[in-house]
């Protein structure tokens, strides 16, 4: 018997609300199936299961539960049905004698508090009853230590009676709340800037070869088969990360852990504000047309608030591309516990020296913000050079 848990969909997620089951008790599930929908500040997320077997003991809907809460049990082949409690009890009994160590509770607590609004239990419950979004209460606490208390919730309701009360009911609400998302971004980025010693590198890449290759590719194809420059950038990064895996992974428990695959989180800005950076899985192993399809699908679903759990849980590095109307360069903020973010500015024609001659070339500014606890600038420079080199040979991507 294995437990199916409320997944962690990013460092900024502490709880999720199960809003829909897509399976029934007794259904057979297999690795990768979407079995449930969970509401988060990043929208309604289709949650995949990474177990094979028969699912049972489905948790009730519409309850906000912490990450790691058991949502269902899965009976794997060879096991017989057992009551729900049996899934939990043996593990507790079999637990080894705990080793008692003195641990300072402080760091863990401060980490857990990041992004968590300081609100009294009574106020939290009242807000939930009244449908007041917690994000709307942030910074408005008048209680002890600035905590939000009951009177602040009541005040919020009298301020905006209509806005504050959200629709209730178990309809799956696709899309996301910009205020909630802003709060989550604030928490994650605040933590990043507090905890991660960033270093920054920038470089200029001659995008001429890539642009030329793209134009030739696209000229022969109808619009739906055409590629965007972003796809070349994605693939070039994936290629370079193969050679420099120190940038592809997570800083956890005081050390670096390399990710199992190259799953870059692609930053998608959302209409109406906010952004999300869901993973494009195994980007190094996909062809350019495959990546284009994946990216188009991902952007569309990110904006519709309909991502899958693995896309939020798996990003191993973030890529941000400002695009043709963006700024010239960007210096990113690492999304913890990732250890790097690569940024691309707008491609624009610039005077450039080629073979000792001045020429006008389309130039692309690339930047790296990386975690100095894991890597140094020397290695970062090599990573950027690797990306630049890959873009000089677009036909090999």
């Amino acid at each position, binding site marked *: 018997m294995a437990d199916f848990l409320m997944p962690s969909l990013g460092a900024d997620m502490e709880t999720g609300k199960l809003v829909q089951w897509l399976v029934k008790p007794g259904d057979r599930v297999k690795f990768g199936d979407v079995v449930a929908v969970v509401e988060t500040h990043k929208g309604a997320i289709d949650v995949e299961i990474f177990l094979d077997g028969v699912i049972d003991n489905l948790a009730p809907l519409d309850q906000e539960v912490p990450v790691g809460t058991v949502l269902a049990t899965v009976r794997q082949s060879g096991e017989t049905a057992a009551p729900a409690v049996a899934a939990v009890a043996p593990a507790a009994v079999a637990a080894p004698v705990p080793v008692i160590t003195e641990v300072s509770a402080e760091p863990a607590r401060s980490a857990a508090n990041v992004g968590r609004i300081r609100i009294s239990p009574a106020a939290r419950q009242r807000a939930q009853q009244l449908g007041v979004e917690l994000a709307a209460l942030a910074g408005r606490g008048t209680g002890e230590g600035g905590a939000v208390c009951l009177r602040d919730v009541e005040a919020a309701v009298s301020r905006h009676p209509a806005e504050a009360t959200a629709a209730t009911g178990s309809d799956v609400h696709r899309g996301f709340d910009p205020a909630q998302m802003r709060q989550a971004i604030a928490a994650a980025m605040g933590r990043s800037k507090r905890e991660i010693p960033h270093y920054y590198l920038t470089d200029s890449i001659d995008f001429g070869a890539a642009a030329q290759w793209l*134009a030739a590719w696209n*000229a022969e194809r*109808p*619009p*739906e088969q055409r590629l*965007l420059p*972003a796809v070349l950038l994605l693939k070039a990064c994936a290629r370079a990360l193969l050679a420099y895996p120190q940038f592809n992974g997570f800083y956890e428990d005081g050390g670096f852990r390399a990710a199992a695959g190259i799953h870059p989180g692609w930053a998608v800005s959302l209409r109406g504000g906010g952004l999300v950076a869901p993973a494009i899985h195994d980007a190094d192993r996909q062809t350019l047309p495959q990546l284009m399809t994946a990216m*188009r699908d991902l952007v569309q679903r990110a904006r519709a608030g309909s991502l899958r759990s693995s896309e939020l849980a798996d990003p191993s590095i973030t890529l941000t591309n400002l695009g043709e*109307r963006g700024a010239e360069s960007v210096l990113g903020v690492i999304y913890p516990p990732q250890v790097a973010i690569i940024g691309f500015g707008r491609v624009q024609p610039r005077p450039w020296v080629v073979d000792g001659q001045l020429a006008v070339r389309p130039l692309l500014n690339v930047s790296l913000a990386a975690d100095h606890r894991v890597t140094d600038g020397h290695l970062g420079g090599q990573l950027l050079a690797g990306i630049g080199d890959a873009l000089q040979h677009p036909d090999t991507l």
Partner: protein
Amino acid sequence: MDKDEVMALVGKVLAGIAPEADLAGVGDDEDLRAALDLDSMDFLNLIIGLSQGSGVAIAEKDYPRLFTLQGIRDYLSA
């Protein structure tokens, strides 16, 4: 395609890309990408929608001619 049909098509395609966009507020000569905050993926999706909806092949090098509503009308109703 006449001009009204083109505008109806533009409206339909954009509704799928930028649901909140109000075409009535966009001037004929305004850059749609700026007016509606379309990124390159959005713009590519617009081109795909226009091309499929009108049956007109749109070459990549012609993209700049479709940056405005006026341009799109001229291009597709030509």
